[in-house]
C-alpha cells in the first residue's frame, strides 16, 4: 500500500512536466512539503520529448538533468508516478485529495539493468515517440527517465511473458500482484500543472493528417530529428523511409482558427524555425525547406533567431495559409494554395509536410475534479473563485518553456502564500 504523509500545509502539484517540476521544486526548496503527482511513469513531460530548445538550439536533457537531481536530493518532495488526481474536496488551506495510482508492476528494487526487457518479446506503440516506433512490454520509458525504473505494460499481465520478465529479474523488482490503488491525503494548496497536448491534426480535414502518412505533426518531427528517436535521428519519411529533403512547414495548423483553436499557440513559429535548422543541418545544400505562414510571430528577443533562419539559403518563406494537401502517385504530399504576395496559385510537391500544430489544454472542462474557472480557450484563469488552486505553465496558457518555468515559479509562491495564510503564518 502506498502511504502519503501530508498535512494541510502540504502543497499538491498536479503534473510533473517542466512546469510541475519547477513549481514542486521551488516550493520544496523553501521547506514546504510537496506531493507531485504525475500521470506518466516518469517526470519531464513533453520537454523530455524535445530534441532541441529554441532559440539557443541547446538540449533539454541538460535542464532536465538539473531538475532531476534537485528532485532526487530534496527530502521535502514526494513523487507519485502513474498517478492521477481523481478527487479534490474542501477549500483553500484545507483540501483532501484523492489520487489513483496505476500499478507499475516494478518496485523500488529496480536497477534498470534491462534483463526483463530482454526476456519479453511483445512490442507496443511507443508513447514517448508519439507512436512512430515500437517498444517492448517491459520498458524504460526513455533513456533518461526519472525515476529510473522499468515499467511493465498492463497488457502483458496474465501472459507467460510477465512470468518470464519476473524470472529474468535478479533483484526481485517485479511484483505482478500490484493492483490499482486509491489514496487520500490532505493538502493546503494545489498547483495545477497539467500542461498541454498537441491539437488533434486529423480534425483539420483539408490537410489529410489521417489520410497521408507523409503529413506529420511538429511534435512527431521533433522525435524524428532526435538521435534517440525512432529513426536514430535520420530525417526520413514514414511511408517509405525516403530521405526527407524537401520539407514543408505549415504554420497555424489548428491555431488562430475559429473552427479549431481560438488562440495563437505562440510556440509554433519558433518551433518551425528551429526545425528548419534540423533539415538544413541534415542535408546541407540538398535541403529544400518551405515555411507557409500567415504572419511569423518571433516575438522580442526571438527576432534574432528568425533573422538567422531567414538567412539560410535553403529555407523559403511563403506568406500563405495553404488550402489543402493531396498526395501524388509516389506518395509525395502536394500543398495547394494561393499566396498573399502576388496572389499566385501554387501546387508544391514535398517529401514530407510538417503541420505546426497548436497547443490545446490537456484537461477538458468536464474532467476537472474540482470547480475551476476556465477561459474560453479552456485554459485556467487566475480567479479568486479557484480558492487554493493555482495554474502553472501551459495549464494557464500556451507558453514556451522559458515562460512556463517563470509562470510555475510564480505559482509556487502563490501556493506558499495560500498555505501560510491558512496556517496563520505571516508572509
Amino acid at each position, binding site marked *: 500500500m502506498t502511504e502519503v504523509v501530508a498535512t494541510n500545509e502540504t502543497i499538491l502539484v498536479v503534473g510533473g512536466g517542466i512546469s510541475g517540476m519547477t513549481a514542486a521544486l521551488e516550493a520544496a526548496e523553501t521547506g514546504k512539503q510537496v506531493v507531485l503527482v504525475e500521470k506518466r511513469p516518469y517526470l519531464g513531460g513533453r520537454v523530455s520529448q524535445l530534441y532541441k530548445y529554441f532559440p539557443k538550439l541547446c538540449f533539454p536533457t541538460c535542464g532536465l538533468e538539473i531538475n532531476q537531481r534537485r528532485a532526487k536530493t530534496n527530502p521535502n518532495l514526494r513523487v507519485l508516478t502513474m498517478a492521477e488526481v481523481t478527487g479534490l474536496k474542501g477549500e483553500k488551506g484545507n483540501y483532501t485529495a484523492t489520487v489513483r495510482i496505476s500499478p507499475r508492476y516494478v518496485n523500488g528494487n529496480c536497477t534498470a539493468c534491462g534483463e526483463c526487457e530482454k526476456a519479453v518479446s511483445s512490442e507496443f506503440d511507443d508513447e514517448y515517440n508519439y507512436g512512430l516506433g515500437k517498444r517492448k512490454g517491459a520498458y524504460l520509458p526513455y533513456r533518461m527517465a526519472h525515476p529510473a525504473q522499468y515499467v511493465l505494460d498492463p497488457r502483458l499481465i496474465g501472459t507467460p511473458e510477465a512470468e518470464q520478465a519476473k524470472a529474468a529479474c535478479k533483484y526481485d523488482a517485479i511484483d505482478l500482484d500490484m493492483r490499482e490503488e486509491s489514496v487520500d491525503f490532505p493538502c493546503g494548496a494545489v498547483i495545477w500543472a497539467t500542461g498541454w497536448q498537441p491539437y488533434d491534426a486529423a480534425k483539420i480535414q*483539408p490537410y489529410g493528417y489521417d489520410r497521408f502518412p507523409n503529413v506529420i505533426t511538429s511534435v512527431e518531427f521533433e522525435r524524428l530529428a532526435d538521435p534517440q528517436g525512432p529513426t536514430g535521428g535520420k530525417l526520413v519519411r514514414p511511408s517509405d523511409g525516403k530521405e526527407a529533403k524537401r520539407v514543408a512547414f505549415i504554420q*497555424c495548423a489548428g491555431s*488562430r*482558427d*475559429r*473552427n*479549431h483553436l481560438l488562440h495563437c499557440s505562440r510556440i509554433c513559429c519558433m518551433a518551425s524555425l528551429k526545425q528548419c535548422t534540423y533539415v538544413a543541418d541534415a542535408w546541407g545544400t540538398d535541403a529544400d525547406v518551405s515555411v507557409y505562414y*500567415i504572419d511569423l510571430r518571433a516575438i522580442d528577443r526571438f527576432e534574432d533567431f528568425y533573422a538567422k533562419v531567414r538567412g539560410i539559403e535553403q529555407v523559403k518563406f511563403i506568406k*500563405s*495559409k*495553404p*488550402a*489543402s494537401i493531396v498526395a501524388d502517385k509516389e506518395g509525395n504530399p502536394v500543398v*495547394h*494554395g*494561393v*499566396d*498573399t504576395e502576388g*496572389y499566385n*496559385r501554387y501546387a508544391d510537391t514535398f517529401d514530407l509536410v510538417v503541420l505546426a500544430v497548436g497547443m490545446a489544454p490537456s484537461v477538458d472542462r468536464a474532467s476537472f475534479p474540482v470547480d475551476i474557472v476556465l477561459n474560453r480557450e479552456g485554459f485556467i484563469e487566475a480567479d479568486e473563485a479557484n480558492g487554493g488552486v493555482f495554474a502553472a505553465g501551459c495549464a494557464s496558457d500556451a507558453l514556451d518553456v522559458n515562460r512556463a518555468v517563470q509562470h510555475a515559479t510564480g505559482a509556487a509562491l502563490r501556493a506558499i502564500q495560500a498555505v501560510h495564510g491558512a496556517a496563520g503564518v505571516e508572509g
Partner: protein
Amino acid sequence: MSDLNTAMVERYRTNFLKEVEANVEEGEWVKMCMQCGVCSGSCPLGKFWAHPPQEIFMMIRAGKREEVLSSDSMWMCTSCYNCIVRCPRELPITHIMHGLATYAKRLGLVPQNQPTAKFAQLFWDNLMKKGRVNELKLGLALYFMNGFGEGVKTALKKQKLGMNMMKTGRMNPMEILGGHAVKDLSGFQKVIQKAQELEDARIAQHGARQGA
C-alpha cells in the same frame, strides 16, 4: 455610369470600405479578413477568377472601387461554400461575393455579357411571372441566350434528354403555353412587393443622399 453610381462615389469619396460595409450584404465582415489565403486556395473555380476573394477584400480596403465593382470575379462564385467552411475567421465569403455582385448590378457596373448575371436575370424574370420557375421556358431561354443559331444547335443536342424527361413525366410540353402558376399568385406578388419595399428602405438609408 449610372446616376446612382455617381451619387455613391460622391457620398463615400475615398472610403470604399465604408461604402461596402453600408451597402453590401455582410459587407461589415470585410475588415475581418487576415489575408491568410485559404478561401482563394479552396475555391474550385479559383483559377478562373481575375481576383480571388482574398484579393478582392484587400482591394476593397485599398479603395479600388472601379476595379472591384466592375470585376467579373464575384460573378464566378458557384456557392459551394468551401471558403466559408474553411475560413479561420468565419467570414461569410460566399454571401459577401453575392452581396458585391448585387451591389454592382444595382449600380449598373456588371461587365457586359457576364453569363452568370445574364442567367440570373432570365431566372428572375421567369420566376416573377407565375411565382414558380417554368423550367421549359427557362431552359429554352438559356439555349437561345447566345443567339438563334447556337440555340438551335444546343436544342438539337439536348433533344434526347428532353424526350426522356417528357416520357418520365419530368417535363410537360404544354408548359410552353403560359404555364401554371403558384396557388396564390397575387399573394406571392404581395410578398415580393413587400420585400422590395423593405429592401428599398434599407438601400435608401445608406444610399445616395437626396440631391447629392
